[in-house]
């Protein structure tokens, strides 16, 4: 619109404007603006109503509720109209009201307080309450935001209950073990006492002595009853071994594990569908999984991944020779892996000792892994631990597999047949004892073995010995990793065959991106049979 002072504004256009038929000269109304504001208000109201938190607007200092959002109405079970007649203190118990009043006087208004609201139905809802004072016109209001923490509270209670259960179970376990042990020996002693008392009673006719012997016999009976009770209490004195599938136990536990372990840890199960059966006591196997899972959880403070795997496996005589208490034969493997903090070798050496713990005082009993160890041993199984500081830990438990009807009788003999491999193998393994064992295994198979001192030495060995057919290497080692050693060698020996071995399962290794698809991988622990098969596969020879 031209101003009259604009020289250029034409006389005529100004006259037209005065006559007032232009678009901008129409009389304006507040109505469109009102509708816009009302729509904005509606949007704002929706925003407030759909908040997860309950919001109350309270007139101060009277304490009357003047507004509340939908969440607030639902939380306390009153309609907005009902709430508007309320003194907010009606939603609080008397003592809480007093405490809040004091708190607001202390000017700690921004702070959150945990308190409880009383609903229309008389229920008590735990809430986290925040108060902020605002002034609008002449009035002062407290904007009160209440967050329902019932779920959080019950989750905490559930967690506490599970922990208590666990502690209790472990306590019972050790008491039971003690009681069972004592009762067992005591029963042997009692047998002698009562047996000889009975014999004496048969021969003795002196009434005075018979009376004394009867008393001894009766006291022995009472002692026997007592030991029976002790045995009943310990429960574990006699294992109830039944044929069972460990997969069933793992599946039954999955849901509870999720709750026990917490949301920040992902629980994964990799179960062999055709898993063989073991003779085991079901509650004990549950105890094993529970203890290992709790141990894994505590190792993964900032969250992580817990993997439970089952697999059929065969431990051969070579493995048995290197592990004093292992019988060769078919086994079922149960592995529990975490991506937690891992442990050093000093900790690994002590980990199964009773009362050894790396946790803060009061946080752990030191019996969890000791219990697992005991149960596994009691079942005639073995437990194997592989851990690398910072990468995580894998526990592998081998329980003897019972023969199933479908099983081939030739399986065992197949492994013992004399088979050879004449390859020249470069062995790279940072654990000297393990290197020694694998070297012997390779030697028994007929391989020529060059043992590298470390990962750098391996590269040098390969450079100087052109006749090496294959490199057998650990994956995770100090210095260069197995993958890096291979990459270095491949620069001058691109055709060199390589077989990686690791105590981590290939699944875990693959997750760390160490192996590409198609690379050869041997799972520790392995039998001579396993080793030979993998060597042949890698060398491209027929099995």
């Amino acid at each position, binding site marked *: 619109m031209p101003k009259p002072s604009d020289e250029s504004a034409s*006389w005529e256009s*100004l006259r037209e404007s*005065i006559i007032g038929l232009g678009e901008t000269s129409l009389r304006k109304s507040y109505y469109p603006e009102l509708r816009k504001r009302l729509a904005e208000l509606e949007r704002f109201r929706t925003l407030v109503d759909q908040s997860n938190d309950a919001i109350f607007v309270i007139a101060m200092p009277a304490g009357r509720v003047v507004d509340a959002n939908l969440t607030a109405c639902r939380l306390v079970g009153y309609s907005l109209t009902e709430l508007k007649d309320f003194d907010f203190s009606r939603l609080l118990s008397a003592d809480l009201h007093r405490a809040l009043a004091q708190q607001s006087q202390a000017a700690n208004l921004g702070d959150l307080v945990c308190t409880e609201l009383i609903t229309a139905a008389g229920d008590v809802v735990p809430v986290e309450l925040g108060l902020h004072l605002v002034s609008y016109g002449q009035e002062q209001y407290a904007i009160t935001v209440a967050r329902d923490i019932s779920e959080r509270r019950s989750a905490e209670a559930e967690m506490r209950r599970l922990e208590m259960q666990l502690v209790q179970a472990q306590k019972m376990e050790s008491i039971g073990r003690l009681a069972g042990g004592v009762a067992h020996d005591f029963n042997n002693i009692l047998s002698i006492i009562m047996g000889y008392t009975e014999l004496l009673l048969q021969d003795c006719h002196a009434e005075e002595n018979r009376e004394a012997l009867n008393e001894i016999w009766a006291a022995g009976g009472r002692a026997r009853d007592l030991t029976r009770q002790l045995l009943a209490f310990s429960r574990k004195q006699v294992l109830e071994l039944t044929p069972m599938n460990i997969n069933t136990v793992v599946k039954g536990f999955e849901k509870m594990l999720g709750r026990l372990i917490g949301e920040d840890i992902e629980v994964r199960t990799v179960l062999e569908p055709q898993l063989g059966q073991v003779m085991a006591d079901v509650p004990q196997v549950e105890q094993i999984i529970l203890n290992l899972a709790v141990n894994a959880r505590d190792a993964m403070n900032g969250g992580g991944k817990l993997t439970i795997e089952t697999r059929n496996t065969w431990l051969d005589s070579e493995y048995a020779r290197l592990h004093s208490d292992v019988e060769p034969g078919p086994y079922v493997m149960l592995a529990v892996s975490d991506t937690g903090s891992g442990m050093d070798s000093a900790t690994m050496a002590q980990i199964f000792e009773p009362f050894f713990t790396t946790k803060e005082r009061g946080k752990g009993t030191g019996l969890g892994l000791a219990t697992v160890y005991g149960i596994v041993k009691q079942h005639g199984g073995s437990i194997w631990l592989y851990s690398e500081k910072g990468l995580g830990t894998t526990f592998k438990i081998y329980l003897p597999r019972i023969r199933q009807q479908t099983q081939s009788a030739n399986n065992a003999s197949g492994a013992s047949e004399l088979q050879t491999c004449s390859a020249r193998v470069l062995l790279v393994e940072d654990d000297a004892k393990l290197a020694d064992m694998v070297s012997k295994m390779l030697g028994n198979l007929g391989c020529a073995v060059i043992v590298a001192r470390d990962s750098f030495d391996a590269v040098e060995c390969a450079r100087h010995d052109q006749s090496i057919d294959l490199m057998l290497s650990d994956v995770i080692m100090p210095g260069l990793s197995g993958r890096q050693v291979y990459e270095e060698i491949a620069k001058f020996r691109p055709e060199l065959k390589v077989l990686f071995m690791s105590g981590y399962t290939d699944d875990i290794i693959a997750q760390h991106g160490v192996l590409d698809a198609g690379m050869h991988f041997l799972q520790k622990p392995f039998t001579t049979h396993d080793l030979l098969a993998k060597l042949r596969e890698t060398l491209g020879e027929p099995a």
Partner: protein
Amino acid sequence: MDLRKFVAPEFVFGQGARKLAGRYARNFGANRVLLVSDPGVMAAGWTAEVKAALNEADIACTEYSAVSPNPRETEVMQGADCYLSEDCDAIVAVGGGSPMDCAKGIGIVCSNERPILEFEGIDNIQQPMPPLICIPTTAGTAADVSQFAVILNTPEKLKIVIAGKSAVPDVALIDPEPLTTMDAYLTACTGLDALVHAIESFVSTASSPITDLHALEAIRLIATNLLGTISQPHDIGLRSQMMLGSLEAGLAFSTASLGAVHAMAHSLGGLLDLPHGECNAILLEHVMAYNFTAAPERFRQIGGALGLDLRGTPNCRDALLAEIRRIKTAAGVTHSLRELGVKPTDLPALAAKAFKDVCLVTNPRKPSQADLESIYAEAL
């Protein structure tokens, strides 16, 4: 017939109309009104009376009376500040053109949140102002029904015209009783102002049949009653006729706009801060003399409305100008511009400012700046 619009607010006319202020303010949803008046109106007691009426309707008042005869932009801004800081939600203006124009300015600033001088011109008001109730206490300005507000730009010594449908009040409560406290000279100046409104709107190039009706009737009412009401100031019948004349003149010029008299009077008010009604009265005959040839038939009708029988009169122009001079003299408005303090050296500047005034665009004859200077010289 060309397209024409007629704009007027709701108005209540008659004795006691001012007492409806409370009812109207309440209907507009007001809780606290800014009551704008000036010291003269306050002294006469009309402000207090309206305030009482508002209070009776449970409406609080914040009074604002720092308004000069030619209301200044600073007074508007100060009033707007007062309105906002006191959390007012409506405006009631009691008084002549000055408080009513100032009240319009305050309303415009409050809802548009910009300095008042930015609204100069036509239709530059984007947001409607808060509810505005006007209670006129003079029979002349008719700002209570018009779409105009005139504000003094003090730094540039220029009266700016703000025009637009958004500057029309929501309701006018037009009551003749407050006129009774005007002295004879104010009655004369305001009455002649109304006469100028009627004459200028009738010859305006934006006039229409509906505005013509009001303009001619206004001329007739003022010519018939002005001198009588000056001599009998308390005759409520005469005051009512004058109030009606002023209202009809307002209805006419609000839509048809004005002409050179107003453009030149605004220039005088801006440069020398002279009273508006008196300037109009002095300039009227000189501008009519200049305009006559552009609309002789219309001027002849004006003569008829003034009560002249111009049949057979060879020189209508002279007869008409003589009648205007007679009325002015009888009303006691006899000053020349020189007597008001205008110097010959002021004329070029006055003409330059008048030449840019928006009221000039509907003048029946398009003057040059030199023409305007000559007219000023004649009125000197």
